[in-house]
């Protein structure tokens, strides 16, 4: 069998050599990567040191003469210096506000960077589309909002998420209908996460309240839900009537619960009566918990009776707990009612104990919206 085979010892040596070689290659690869990284960082730092004073000056431009001088300096930059400048400015702009920020954005506009990057919005490479979206989100250029809205339907998930974030950072109220409306069109596998959309709408601020109300009135279940949440977070007192309406009549229990939470945040005493109605059994547990919590936040002592009833009779443990916590928040009348009930209600005892210990009770999260 083995007449032409090489000497086993030689073979062993060859194999060992191969193994050692592999290890050396691994270390070298690691070392090379490391060195490249350090060199790139050093290069960037060298460039940055020359460019930072330029940026600092750009923020101080007070007149036309200053801008002419700036243009001159910008034209003198090499390509890599220019890229470093763009990178540094883009990193700084989101952290600043006021005149300096405007001047920096103007700087980018003068360099033509914004237009150049905006062209990448339609690039074939998802990575470039992503960078372009993030750049535009950071430098607050509302003129490309329409293109960003189109990218809410992008093939690539990261680009879609970045587009949502960018619209939020730019903060244009006009983009809100598109954002909320998109929630109602659930393309399979291209859904927009509600979390990201509501964050973007929140960033658009109070100016978007009208648009949000529109969604609450006329939108699909998903956008109505988001709208109710946002109105509460924004603290839009003017939305109270609509929210009361949604609380009483909306077909979706999720939306009704969100409306209850929002009313709690708004804290309008007149809404307490509507919430007390929602403490009753026919309403789903989700809604009852939200209503109880909201009553605690509003603080209308007249709701103590309704809450006490719920504490004694509700079938769901979490509703009873929410009722007890709400009663504690009501202060005097609520606490006395809890004391009266403590012989029969373990929740009352727990909440009293916590209140006496001087601690705010741990928040009770909203019930799960999408079961397994």
């Amino acid at each position, binding site marked *: 069998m083995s007449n032409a085979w090489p000497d086993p010892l030689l073979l062993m040596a060859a194999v060992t050599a191969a193994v050692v070689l592999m290890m050396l290659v691994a270390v070298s690869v690691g070392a090379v990567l490391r060195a490249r990284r350090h060199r790139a960082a050093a290069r960037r730092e060298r460039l940055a040191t020359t460019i*930072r004073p330029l940026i600092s000056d750009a923020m101080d431009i007070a007149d036309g003469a200053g801008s002419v001088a700036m243009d001159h300096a910008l034209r003198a930059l090499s390509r890599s210096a220019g890229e470093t400048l763009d990178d540094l400015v883009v990193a700084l702009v989101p952290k*600043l506000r006021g005149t*300096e920020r405007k001047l920096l954005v103007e700087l980018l506009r003068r360099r033509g960077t914004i237009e150049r990057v905006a062209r990448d919005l339609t690039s074939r490479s998802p990575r470039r589309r992503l960078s372009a979206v993030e750049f535009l989100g950071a430098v607050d250029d509302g003129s490309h909002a329409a293109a960003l809205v189109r990218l809410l339907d992008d093939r690539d998930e990261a680009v879609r998420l970045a587009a949502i974030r960018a619209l939020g950072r730019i903060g244009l109220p006009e983009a809100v209908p598109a954002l909320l409306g998109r929630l109602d069109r659930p393309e399979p596998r291209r859904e927009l996460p509600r979390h990201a959309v509501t964050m973007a709408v929140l960033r658009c601020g109070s100016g978007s309240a009208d648009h949000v109300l529109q969604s609450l009135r006329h939108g699909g279940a998903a956008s109505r839900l988001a709208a109710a949440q946002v109105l509460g977070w924004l603290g839009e007192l003017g939305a109270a009537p609509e929210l009361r309406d949604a609380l009483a009549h909306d077909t979706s229990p999720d939306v009704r619960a969100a409306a209850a939470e929002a009313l709690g945040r708004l804290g309008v005493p007149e809404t307490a009566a509507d919430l007390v109605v929602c403490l009753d059994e026919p309403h789903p547990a989700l809604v009852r918990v939200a209503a109880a919590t909201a009553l605690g936040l509003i603080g209308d002592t007249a709701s103590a009776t309704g809450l006490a009833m719920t504490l004694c009779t509700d079938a769901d443990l979490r509703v009873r707990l929410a009722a007890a916590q709400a009663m504690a928040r009501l202060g005097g009348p609520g606490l006395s009612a809890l004391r009266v009930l403590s012989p029969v209600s373990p929740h009352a005892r727990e909440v009293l104990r916590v209140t006496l210990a001087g601690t705010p009770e741990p928040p009770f999260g909203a019930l799960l919206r999408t079961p397994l």
Partner: protein
Amino acid sequence: MSTIALVDDDRDICLLLELKLRAAGHEVLVEHDGEAGLAMMRDRRPDLVILDWMMPRLSGLEVCLAVRDDAELRELPIILLTAKAQEADVERGLSAGADDYVVKPFSPRELLSRVEARLRRSGT
């Protein structure tokens, strides 16, 4: 000419502010984490410190508390510069001993004016 300490883990902001403060005629000392910052303050005794909140090793809040506890540093004016913008955060920051609270995103011009005002007030 006053010495201003700048303690923030965001290098871009630090470099920018350093340039601006130097241009305004101050000497600037920079550190990027709370512990190093505290050590630097004990060592060099700056006239004012601009302090970030969220930092590795020791947070700005803890630095604040440490400075107010230290007999020699107690009078040091502290301006908190942070992204934490909730009411509760402002309360915490001020009750930990900060003299002023600037929220990011911020205006460098405005920050500089506050720095000048503080320095005037503490007689430097």
